């Protein structure tokens, strides 16, 4: 993605909000224990997060980041940040606590996150930087009172055009002036949206879309619109208007496709795209690079929409007969039980037990004596043993295939 490839690593190469940027750089440069924490407020896509990372890097700070995808209740915040309230690091390296999207922190009514944060602000011996999109929220008003506020505004159209032209030049691509102006106008001061749209337009794989969506619809509504869409733009708008979890979107699309009778190469192609999207979600979870989730809807919409061209798919919940679904669910549950039983004595995670240990245990269980040992050791009931035997057959087939 261009937005990641061309994300400025230096605050001097960013665009827009010049005075605010300058003030923030000065704040971090001159930070002392008497300084108030920084609260960066402004609409999405104007460079708040990028400015924090780029400035920290430029001034030699290590960033300890907690973003909206982390659980930020009092206990979780205390666990991660508590030790830093009173101590710096062993080697006196410069650290900065960065809380992105603080609008998502829980307040007093639920889990005390905001109260902990206010306490942290008072006692922290290292710089604390917070970022929020909204400022009329009660929680943010509270934080703003005890912070130095840096307000961001949307980026003017001419600067958006300038940055797009610069990226296109580096990519060796061009866009006609009309398209360029349309992208700039549609982005409404959001650099991220402008760059994403420019990439889509320049690659010719889809239509230009704006990332700013205010309406929220349910997953069912979103998928009905998604499958009725006549363009990838409409498909994207439908997906991005629904706040369901990425995996739920993938699962629901999968079920609809399976229940619509898509066959042959088209099915292979679309399932391939879905599995790529699933791998992306897994990668994001593994690397905790939750920032990439911002592009998930666009990737999913473009790839699945293009793969489904010409197929008549309708929203549907049941992809397989219920008895088959029940069997799959039940077997997965039983294999999960075996894996977690194996995990404990071997001091590994259930996932590792399932991936590494279970196939060997299953192969060894081809011997009746060993099966009895496993059965007794893991206290497996008859139905779970049946599932284990099926697993033995499946693995044996795979081994025979080589």
């Amino acid at each position, binding site marked *: 993605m261009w937005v990641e490839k061309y994300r400025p690593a230096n605050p*001097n190469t960013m665009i827009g909000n010049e005075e605010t940027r300058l003030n923030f750089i000065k704040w971090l440069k001159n930070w002392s224990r008497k300084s108030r924490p920084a609260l960066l407020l402004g609409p999405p896509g104007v460079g708040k997060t990028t400015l924090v990372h780029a400035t920290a890097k430029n001034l030699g700070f290590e960033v300890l980041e907690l973003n909206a995808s982390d659980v930020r209740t009092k206990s979780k915040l205390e666990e991660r940040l508590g030790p830093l309230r009173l101590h710096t690091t062993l080697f006196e390296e410069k650290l900065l606590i960065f809380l992105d999207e603080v609008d998502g922190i829980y307040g007093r009514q639920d889990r005390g996150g905001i109260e902990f944060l206010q306490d942290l602000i008072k006692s922290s011996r290292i710089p604390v930087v917070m970022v929020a999109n909204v400022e009329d929220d009660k929680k943010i008003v509270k934080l703003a009172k005890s912070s130095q506020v840096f307000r961001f505004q949307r980026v003017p159209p001419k600067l958006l055009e300038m940055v797009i032209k610069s990226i296109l030049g580096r990519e060796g691509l061009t866009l006609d002036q009309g398209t360029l102006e349309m992208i700039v106008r549609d982005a409404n001061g959001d650099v991220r949206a402008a760059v994403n749209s420019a990439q889509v337009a320049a690659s010719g794989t889809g239509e230009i879309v704006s990332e700013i969506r205010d309406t929220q619809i349910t997953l069912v509504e979103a998928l009905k619109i998604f499958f009725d869409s006549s363009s990838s733009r409409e498909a994207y708008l439908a997906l991005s208007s629904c706040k369901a979890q990425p995996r739920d979107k993938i699962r629901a699309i999968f079920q609809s496709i399976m229940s619509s009778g898509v066959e042959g190469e088209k099915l292979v192609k679309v399932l391939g795209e879905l599995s790529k999207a699933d791998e992306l979600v897994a990668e994001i979870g593994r690397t905790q690079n939750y920032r990439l989730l911002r592009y998930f809807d666009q990737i999913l919409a473009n790839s699945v929409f293009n793969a489904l061209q010409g197929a008549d798919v309708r929203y549907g919940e049941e992809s397989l007969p219920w008895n088959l679904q029940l069997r799959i669910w039940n077997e997965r549950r039983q294999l999960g039980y075996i894996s977690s039983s194996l995990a404990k004595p071997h001091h590994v995670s259930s996932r590792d037990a399932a991936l590494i240990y279970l196939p060997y245990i299953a192969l060894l269980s081809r011997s009746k004596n060993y099966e009895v040992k496993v059965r007794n050791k893991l206290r497996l009931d008859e139905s779970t043993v049946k599932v284990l035997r099926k697993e033995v057959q499946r693995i044996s087939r795979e081994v025979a295939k080589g």
Partner: protein
Amino acid sequence: MKIVVGEWFWMPQVGGDVFKKLVKDAGLKYDKSNGFQATPETDMRLVAALLQSALKEDVEVMLKCFICGAPVECEECRYNDACGSTKTFQSCICKDCETKEVSAIYSMRFTELVG
């Protein structure tokens, strides 16, 4: 009335209530010797609305060119309609500075300011 964002300006008497709203609610900076100044903290939409209603005249918000510092003439700009009359940006680029190297010059100007 024209307001150039970032520059000091004077305005006719608007009354205590409007003055308070301009300074407290809209975040317009006031200094006895210099007058008023719109900063990044200022809500320009509110400033324009308050002044239009108090002065019964149109308020035009202008931006300074980040590169040369001159006020940007918006009438000639292709994006004039997209910005609207109450531009909520901190600065822009004037027509004269829109050269091929504008991107590099813009970054150099900012680097100069950082020092």
